[in-house]
């Protein structure tokens, strides 16, 4: 069996499962951010008093923090009250950061388990060997009530990556090139398994870029095959026992792909689709108004480090606004200790509090009509970050940092 099949078999109490089989899986972790307010409404409608397990539900705020409006403040208030009412054990208020960074940091992302989250980028946690899928709010209300959920066992797609990354070329360039090749629906309903030399050598943060952006080719879940690096990271952050699921030698895949990164160049997703991927050189020289480094895709320490390296002693172009958003309080503190924040502020960057920032167009740095933003985030849909007449390009932290200096899109 593949990783997805093994985990779903375990979670549904079966010895084996096959693709397309419908199973009911027990949920190990159920995560929601501000949209817990939508979940809450549906949960009340069902009409039961208590959640199935207050120790398996993780709630936090990241999408609109601090509250951008009275409406959001009321949402935050209702959720805080619910946390107290139900005795939800794991609640991270607005000081912590983005869900897809906080859950791993706090030890909730564990190999071999089933996690659901009311956020499409929940696929990120597959970097730890977790079967982690995004679901909707009403469905989550069902999970809060019953602790289980139906899944169609997905077919799996194996992507084996060999070679070594050239300087300033990273996981973001790799996953963008894969999405460009497979298309926005290229992994629809599938489980993706990343393996191979280049994946083994990747940091945990880079592996999370791979599983995070797999969502943008339609994946239900994505995994990095767990190894010693995975186990070390998770063990340092939780005392809970877990068993990693590894794919069997004879696992069946719907498709396999082999990619070598030796000659990979900086890549960029052009407006208004994540699969509209080109080499950066094809659009180099495009004037930008805003540059953004952050998000659940690329707001981690290594992302801020490479930006600081490129911006050290340089200044952001006069007509460009550079926004930097550490993914979490832990990342922010480390970036301060390492001196990265000082370098970035001296270069002219504005540092925002850990959270989703303007990625989803809610607040903090939206775009006016005709403006262009180059961003390390995960979506460039029309109007995503503000005006429907604005344009968003998605690239690596190194490319965004270099572009901020040049005032135009530029490869690092």
């Amino acid at each position, binding site marked *: 069996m593949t990783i997805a099949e093994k985990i779903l078999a375990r979670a549904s109490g079966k010895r084996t499962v096959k693709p397309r089989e419908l199973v009911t899986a027990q949920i190990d972790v159920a995560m929601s951010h501000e949209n817990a307010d939508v979940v809450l409404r549906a949960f009340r409608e069902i009409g039961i008093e208590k959640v199935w397990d207050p120790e398996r539900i993780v709630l936090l705020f990241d999408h609109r923090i601090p509250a951008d409006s009275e409406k959001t403040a009321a949402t935050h208030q209702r959720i805080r009250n619910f946390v107290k009412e139900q005795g939800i054990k794991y609640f991270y208020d607005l000081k912590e950061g983005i869900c897809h960074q906080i859950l791993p940091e706090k030890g909730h992302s564990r190999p071999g388990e089933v996690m659901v989250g009311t956020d499409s980028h929940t696929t990120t946690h597959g970097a730890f060997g977790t079967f982690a899928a995004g*679901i*909707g709010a009403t469905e989550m209300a069902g999970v809060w009530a019953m602790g289980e959920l139906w899944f169609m066992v997905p077919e799996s797609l194996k992507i084996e990556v060999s070679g070594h990354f050239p300087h300033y070329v990273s996981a973001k360039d790799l996953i963008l090139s894969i999405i460009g090749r497979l298309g926005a629906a290229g992994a629809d309903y599938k489980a993706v398994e990343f393996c191979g030399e280049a994946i083994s050598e990747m940091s945990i943060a880079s592996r999370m870029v791979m599983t995070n952006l797999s969502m943008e080719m339609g994946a239900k879940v994505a995994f990095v095959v767990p190894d010693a690096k995975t186990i070390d990271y998770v063990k340092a952050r939780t005392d809970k026992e877990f068993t990693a699921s590894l794919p069997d030698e004879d696992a069946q895949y719907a498709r396999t792909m082999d990619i070598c990164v030796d000659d990979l160049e900086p890549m960029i997703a052009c407006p208004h689709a994540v699969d509209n991927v080109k080499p950066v050189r094809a659009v180099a020289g495009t004037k930008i108004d805003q540059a953004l480094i952050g998000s659940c895709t690329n707001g981690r320490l290594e992302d801020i480090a490479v930006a600081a390296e490129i911006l050290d002693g340089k200044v952001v172009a006069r007509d460009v606004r550079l926004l930097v958003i550490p993914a979490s309080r832990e990342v922010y503190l480390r970036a301060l200790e390492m001196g990265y924040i000082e370098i970035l502020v001296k270069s002219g960057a504005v540092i925002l509090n850990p959270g989703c920032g303007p990625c989803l167009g809610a607040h903090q740095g939206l775009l006016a009509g005709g403006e262009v933003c180059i961003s390390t985030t995960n979506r460039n849909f029309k109007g995503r970050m503000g005006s429907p007449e604005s344009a968003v390009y998605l690239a690596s932290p190194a490319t965004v940092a270099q572009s901020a200096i040049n005032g135009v899109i530029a490869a690092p």
Partner: protein
Amino acid sequence: MEMIKGRVYKFGDDVNTDVIYPGKYLSITTDRQEMAKHCFEAAHPEFLVNAQAGDIIVGGRNFGCGSSREQAATCLLHFGIAAVVAESFARIFYRNAINLGLPVVVAPGITQLVEQGDIIEISLDQGFVKNTGTSAIVQSTKLPSYVMEIINDGGLVKHLQKRLGIRKDREG
């Protein structure tokens, strides 16, 4: 379940949830009628003028890709959209629609069969979609019985109430 009949409002491939329901309205979490006022507002403002309650949305491949925001399905349901038929759906939107009781129908070939404004009939039970003007028919994928049960119960909330033996009379 009876036939669903309605006028076609047609879109292309990869219609994403940011386009269906802009992120700036995500702070609306409970007022479903308010959500319905913002369907396709930024990217296709003509929708709110030209579409009517009872219309059936026909989409291409990968309808509803992107964010998990349930508002994308809620706003269509409360606008009065009778069903969404597409070549294929992105999985989270598809599940959200089922859980809310909005019929979603996978019908490969549908975009070749109908034009904007055509009248179509959908049979969820028998698994077909028919263009009443041309009488052309495409087969649609039948849903597993477990999933049909959720739709027939009127969505997940009512389905769970039934399972748990909770009798409630509330608007869904």
